């Protein structure tokens, strides 16, 4: 087990691509760190740098106390689960898992014990003699996991290991990986572009965009205190609503509607030069139908466009002063398309961003 430390790590590809841009990140010993971000943001590249499959262009990368910039992949004591499974197609499931151990000259009985234990954990006992071709996608995925587990490495690197599984199997395997992490306590760096996966699995989440680390924190920190517009929009489902407003003294104008503010948002609004634009954000699940008595809330009128019934809840698409607003309301509210409603956001649930720097002013 070990820490993984990125110290000002850069990875440039020919053609002016900076896939990883000045990454500073410390993964604690035994931590489950999720690297999340949209497609092409450099997650895989960052992971491959740790594995040693890419040489880093600049900076220092350490595993434990050892700087591994010039250490070959096989000497880093890591195991990687690839975005594609990368199984050895001509070997049986057993041999796929045993391959790395054989190369490390482990005794036959030890290999056998480890492979059978991993197969037990992953429910692969019955498939040990099969070739990968004769397995389902989920089973192949588990073989890829098993191949990493048997190695008992210092660090697991996993690159979107669930992306090819159907919804049910994904939930199941997600729990399996969490269980394996609890059981082995090994440091895991886990890459995904799925924020739900990130929220449910990670001890901490690192959000990346265009090669740049946006924010790192626990799922709760990212949800309640996003550092900027990108993180605010990326974490949470359905995504946060953003509305551009204009400052006017201590007030905020959303089109023609004057927003009543108080507390921290009001102080921030008052501190701006009048006429400056701000972006305010609020999550669909924090919107409520105003009932007149909610004093500590920002209220605004809206016209309901579409209602999507989800069972326990309804997803309301509404328009307010030319902005599209999504609200998640309990389904007993009986809101219909075309209704005029007044929506309210509790003030402590309101985020304020500077549209130029995209940084959070209140979060």
């Amino acid at each position, binding site marked *: 087990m070990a820490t993984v430390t990125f110290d000002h790590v850069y990875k440039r590809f020919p053609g002016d691509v900076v896939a990883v841009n000045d990454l500073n990140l410390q993964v604690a010993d035994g931590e489950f760190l999720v690297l999340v971000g949209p497609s092409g943001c450099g997650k895989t590249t960052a992971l491959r740098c740790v594995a*040693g*499959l890419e040489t880093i262009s600049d900076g220092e990368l350490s595993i434990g106390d050892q700087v591994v910039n010039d250490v070959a992949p*096989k000497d880093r004591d890591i195991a990687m689960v690839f975005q594609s499974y990368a199984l050895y197609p001509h070997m049986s499931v057993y041999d796929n898992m045993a391959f790395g151990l054989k190369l490390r000259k482990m005794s036959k009985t030890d290999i056998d014990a480890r492979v059978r234990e991993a197969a037990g954990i992953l429910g692969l006992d019955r498939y040990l003699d099969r070739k990968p*071709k004769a397995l389902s996608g989920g089973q192949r995925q588990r073989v890829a996991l098993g191949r990493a587990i048997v190695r008992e490495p210092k660090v697991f690197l996993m690159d979107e290991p669930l992306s*090819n599984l159907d919804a049910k199997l994904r939930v199941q395997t997600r729990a399996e990986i969490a269980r394996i992490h609890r059981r082995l306590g090994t440091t895991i760096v886990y890459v995904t572009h799925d924020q739900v996966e990130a929220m449910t699995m990670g001890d901490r989440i690192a959000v990346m965009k265009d090669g740049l680390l946006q924010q790192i924190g626990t799922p709760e920190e990212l949800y309640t205190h996003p550092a900027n517009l990108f993180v605010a929009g990326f974490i949470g489902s359905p995504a946060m609503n953003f509305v551009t407003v204009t400052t006017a003294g201590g007030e905020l104008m959303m089109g023609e509607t004057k927003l009543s503010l108080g507390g921290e948002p009001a102080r921030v609004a008052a501190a701006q030069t009048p006429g400056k634009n701000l972006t305010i954000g609020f999550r669909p699940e924090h919107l409520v139908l105003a009932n007149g008595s909610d004093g500590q809330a920002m209220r605004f009128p809206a016209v309901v466009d579409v209602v999507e019934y989800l069972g326990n809840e309804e997803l309301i698409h509404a328009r307010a002063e030319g902005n599209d607003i999504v609200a998640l309301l309990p389904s007993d509210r009986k809101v219909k398309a075309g209704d005029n409603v007044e929506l309210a956001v509790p003030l402590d649930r309101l985020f304020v961003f500077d549209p130029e720097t995209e940084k959070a002013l209140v979060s």
Partner: protein
Amino acid sequence: MTATSPGLDQAGPEQGWFARQHIGLHTALIVLMVIWAIPTFGLFVNSFRPATEAFGTGWWSALFPPYNFTFENYAHVLGQSNIGTNFLNSLFISIPATVIPIFVAAFAAYAFSWMEFPGRNILFVVVVGLLVVPLQATLIPVLSLFASWGIAGTFLAVWLAHTAYGLPFAIYLLRNFMGSLPREVFESAAIDGASSVTSFFRLALPMSVPAIAALAIFQFLFVWNDLLVALIYISIVNPDNLPLTVSIAGLVTSQGAGTEFLGAAAFISMALPLIVFFGLQRFFVRGIVGGSVKG
């Protein structure tokens, strides 16, 4: 289970379309095969006919009475005192001249596909460029080189020559095949602790079996049927090492007598390549990397 049932429902019309496609394909294949096989069949029939008849009438007339078949031609060819030696020589030339270039080419193809070294692309272009050098242009300089090394007329000379002539194409073909194997498999092996040599023998080679089998057939046929290379590098110096092709050519005199034996000789010489072909056929597996990476 339920997820697959829509697919099953569609199977009816799908299969009909599929079957119609197959009928067209099969008809075309059968027609082509017949056109291809007729001359061979004619030669086969003629190889069992006396010379006088074979030259006087078409082979098809032998299929109607009065029948007049004979084993004379085969007897004559097999009766040649050196035919057994020649057959063994052919084998002794063909097997190493197939194995050596493929082995070397596999190493080279792996390096060209998966190892980083300076000048890799230029070197590959040069190797492929060698494909255009006509074999005939090399005969005299190579022969004098072999003579100065003192190996002209030996099997070693022919092995070396066939290896050199076969390599560019073999490297080209295997590089293209190995280059299309999934990169992550090799990366995974590198993390698992495999060196390049291990990766080559444990992964690249077994995964390239279909390409290697195809190449083996080509190279074996080329060497087995080769007359020119053997004639130049062996026959002038050492008639004891002559392969079957040279002795078959020798059946016909310069005046053209003895052509009736050629058919029989051809079929004798054809027997082994057929065995090789059918022997290697089971290695032509489609989708050998199936299940390795998600598609």
